[in-house]
């Protein structure tokens, strides 16, 4: 049974049509990836799901609940967490405060403590940096914090926007490994990536976006061996 469903979603930025009727589905427990060139609408799609942008037309539902008119903080309450493009950790706050903010809506102290331990198991580095200002972290550590913070709301769906952007190759491998781990623990993940090669390796399915439309979709393996996808996005 599909969890997240986008039906013919249109989004306009000023006069520009950024999304021209996107439809996609994500099932519980899957990693699904959106790939495509710059400006294809990948980030816009994530921002629309998490309520930062209002669709001009179309419908978004999650576990049957209509998200289309909800505000971002209400969508977090529905169980969707979004680690935005560029990480955007709160540089003026400590690592501890960043993680606490991730759990802003929660009242279950025990659950929060358990999730904090889980984040520390995934990213031991964050434990070492616990009382430091997030602005002093390296790029890789900030990415860990952004993902860890997103996990702290105990979401049922994780939206990740370019988690590998600007990271050294070794860290890129680490972060993809971690995404796979998080998924293995039962988390549904929608992953936006420029690094289509890596994304298709860990995803079950993928959608290829071009100028605000879905132009291909299918199992990740098939997409990875599709000639058109290879040529356009995998550099082969």
């Amino acid at each position, binding site marked *: 049974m599909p969890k997240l469903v986008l039906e013919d979603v249109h989004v306009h930025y000023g006069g520009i049509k950024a999304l021209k009727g996107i439809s996609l589905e994500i099932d519980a427990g899957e990693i699904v990836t959106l790939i495509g060139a710059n400006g294809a609408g990948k980030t816009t799609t994530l921002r629309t799901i998490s*309520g930062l942008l209002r669709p001009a037309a179309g419908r978004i539902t999650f576990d049957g609940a209509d998200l289309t008119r909800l505000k971002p903080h209400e969508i977090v309450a529905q169980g969707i967490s979004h680690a935005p493009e560029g990480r955007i950790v709160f540089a003026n*706050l400590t690592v501890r405060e960043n993680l606490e903010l991730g759990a802003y809506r929660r009242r279950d102290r025990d659950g929060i403590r358990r999730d904090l331990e889980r984040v520390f198991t995934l990213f031991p580095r964050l434990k070492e940096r616990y009382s430091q200002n997030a602005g002093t972290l390296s790029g890789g550590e900030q990415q860990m914090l952004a993902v860890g913070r997103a996990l702290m709301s105990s979401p049922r769906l994780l939206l990740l926007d370019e988690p590998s952007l600007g990271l050294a190759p070794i860290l890129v491998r680490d972060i993809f490994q971690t995404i796979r781990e998080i998924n293995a623990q039962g988390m549904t993940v929608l992953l936006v990536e420029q690094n289509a090669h890596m994304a298709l390796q860990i995803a079950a399915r993928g959608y290829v976006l071009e100028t605000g439309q879905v132009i291909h979709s299918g199992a990740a393996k098939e997409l990875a061996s599709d000639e058109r996808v290879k040529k356009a996005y995998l550099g082969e």
Partner: protein
Amino acid sequence: MQEFAQQLLNGLSWGSIYALIALGYTMVYGVLRFINFAHGDVYMVGAFLAYYIAHAVGAGSHPSVAAAALVLLGSMVGCAILGVIIERAAYRPLRRQPRLTVLITAIGVSLLLENAGQLVFGADPKFFPQFIPGRNLSVGGVVVTSHQIVILGVSLLLMAGLHTFVMKTKTGMALRAVSFHREAASLMGIPTDRIISITFAVGSALAAAAGVLVGLSNPKIDPLMGLLPGLKAFVAAVLGGIGNIPGAMIGGLILGVAEVLVSGYISSTLRDAIAFGILIVILLTRPTGLLGRGQVEKV
């Protein structure tokens, strides 16, 4: 030396009033990135609310600590509500509009409050009831008035309270997050509009406290009294680094001391010029202010 100490004390007491007003500018700038030019007029409303409450409870004729506290709290609560209403009615509908639009609206709100003030309170200055008896204390030749003690004590208490609120509470943490990046804060599940309302409430309450305190030392209040202190507190906020809370406190104190020293040692006609002189210098040499950090323009 003794005279200098006296000037310094007068300056600090005057500066703490600027600091209280400057905090509202800087906090609102922090969450919304615009200068709320109506803020000085909220300070004026605070003084008038205190005037009416003091008369209603007879604080002027029968001064007592309880009555003074009631006047202060009443005025702060009243202005907190006013601040929230201003934000809801005038600024929130413009949330997705360019900042210039909001800035112009703020000037409109300022004019509205000033003229409504003249209509409701009357344009004539009013004598602020002296609900704290004026006494002079001499400490090593330096004269400390009871009003200065109250002004410094209340400001210190309020600033310490604000610091605790911003640094130690969950709402304060959310406020800092919204200041850093409103959109990212909303992705944490923070209801950003509510945090913005709280910011206006707190900032306006501090301005009201400044209005009450200023009434004690300069007991002549009128509906345009917020104009100049409002502008100067804005300078204080810029001096400290706009958006930076400790910066606003320090900027206010420096400005107060500078004004008093200039009028004491150079010429009292230059008193009002010093604030804007400081503004020009700070904008030319260090536009981010004393404590402000350069911000990378977000893409």
